[in-house]
């Protein structure tokens, strides 16, 4: 395959960047998108040009480290209706001779570090504000010692599949991280282990979400449409319900 790549280049610490065009020859359709970027970087290195910086780790679609905006879609999806992570997107999803735009996540809460790498530590601080449970350490508790109904455990597990990649923020026209925050809230609110800190958690995490400069949700649904783990939009409604309930509880006054 022959591909024309237009990649966002932004030097470390530079306030602005721009699109650079690169021609790619003999790209295998079986390559993942990241392998194609590796190929680009080998080519650039040989040519004496600074390689394109991009985040990646497991390349199995489970760690949440990778993610770029491809042709305007967070993570990119080619012609497929199914959302995926960038590492699980393959070049066969694109037409031979295509021009592909590659940009970093863009949001006030995610400043660009360099090229396609953005600073997502705001997510860590939202988690620190309440996305944990307090349990005794030591040996693992007996299985089924704390009964959880099937409905609740399914819901909690669906929410827990969030890998924190930030695609929801990248896709949101308001730069909101509500889908991420709501997945964490829903995950722990459904389980008995999450109950002691349930109300203080939602207050703390929503407060931190806003303090990080993320926007507000307008229920447009772009986030859920790009989420590689298909976190549903109704988790944001769940968060709203939790927060309104929490405002009438004494925890974390």
């Amino acid at each position, binding site marked *: 395959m022959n591909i024309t790549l237009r990649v966002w280049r932004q030097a470390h610490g530079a306030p602005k960047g721009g699109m650079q065009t690169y021609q790619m020859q003999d790209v295998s359709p079986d390559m993942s998108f990241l392998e194609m970027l590796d190929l680009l970087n080998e080519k650039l290195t040989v040519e004496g040009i600074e390689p394109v910086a991009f985040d990646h780790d497991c390349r199995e679609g489970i760690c949440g480290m990778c993610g770029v905006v491809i042709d305007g879609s967070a993570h990119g999806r080619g012609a497929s209706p199914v959302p995926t992570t960038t590492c699980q997107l393959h070049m066969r999803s694109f037409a031979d001779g295509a021009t592909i735009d590659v940009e970093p996540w863009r949001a006030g809460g995610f400043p660009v570090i360099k090229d396609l790498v953005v600073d997502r530590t705001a997510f860590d601080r939202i988690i620190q504000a309440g996305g944990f449970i307090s349990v005794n350490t030591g040996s693992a508790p007996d299985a089924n010692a704390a009964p959880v109904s099937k409905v609740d455990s399914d819901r909690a597990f669906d929410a827990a599949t969030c890998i924190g990649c930030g695609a929801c923020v990248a896709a949101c026209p308001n*730069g909101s991280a509500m889908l991420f925050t709501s997945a964490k809230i829903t995950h722990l609110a459904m389980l008995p282990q999450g109950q002691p800190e349930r109300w203080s958690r939602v207050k703390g995490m929503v407060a931190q979400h806003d303090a990080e400069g993320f*926007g*507000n949700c307008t*229920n447009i649904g772009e986030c859920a449409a790009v989420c590689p783990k298909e976190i549903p939009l109704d988790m944001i409604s769940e968060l709203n319900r939790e*927060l309104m309930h929490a*405002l009438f509880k004494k925890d974390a006054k």
Partner: protein
Amino acid sequence: MATTTLSPRARAVRSSVAMKALMAVTGLIMIGFLLMHMYGNLKVFLGAEAFDHYAHWLKGDILYPLIPSGWFIWIFRAFMLAAIVLHAASAVHLWRKANAARGSSYVTTNRLQQSYAARTMRWGGVILVGFLVFHLLQFTAQVIKTGWNSGAGPYEMFVVSFQQWWLVLAYALWMVAVCMHIRHGFWSAAATLGANTSLASRRVWNGLAYCVAVLLYVGFMIAPLAVLFGVVK
């Protein structure tokens, strides 16, 4: 990272989620008002006497003698004005925060989900307020007289106005804007207040939003059209 001395609860009360809830409640109040307004307008089909009597009653002795005669309309107007101001103020506040949070714009954008109605909520809302001012100057304050003379009754004002095709057209376009705002707003209010509980309920709320928008459009436009085509004289 912003630091603050406010407690988590105080920050949660001031959060975008709480402000969105205020916006949702005031929006639903306005949808309730529009449904009532639409019902009142349909009384034009019962003739001049019924329509004028209803209009007179609205400004007359509702809740009398609990409150003095004629007070209800002013209490109600103050309530509606408060709803509009709170709705608009929260919209402006969230709009500014969202603009700051959006960051720099993409070179390429691929919209997967958002509807035209959802995308035009903010500027659409501004246009709605502009036309609302015209509407109130026309039929409430009666400063802008569209074809009638001073002292005309409500029925006469209605009929004389909507015998002019351009006014019917203007209101038809305004109602498109209103109903698009309601199409996304009704669903969004439900989701914001926590009523979106599953993929199925997302479909139900969106379906209901279409129903409310279409009902309001048909209900509001049928009377002016009836006047325009001479069914109501």
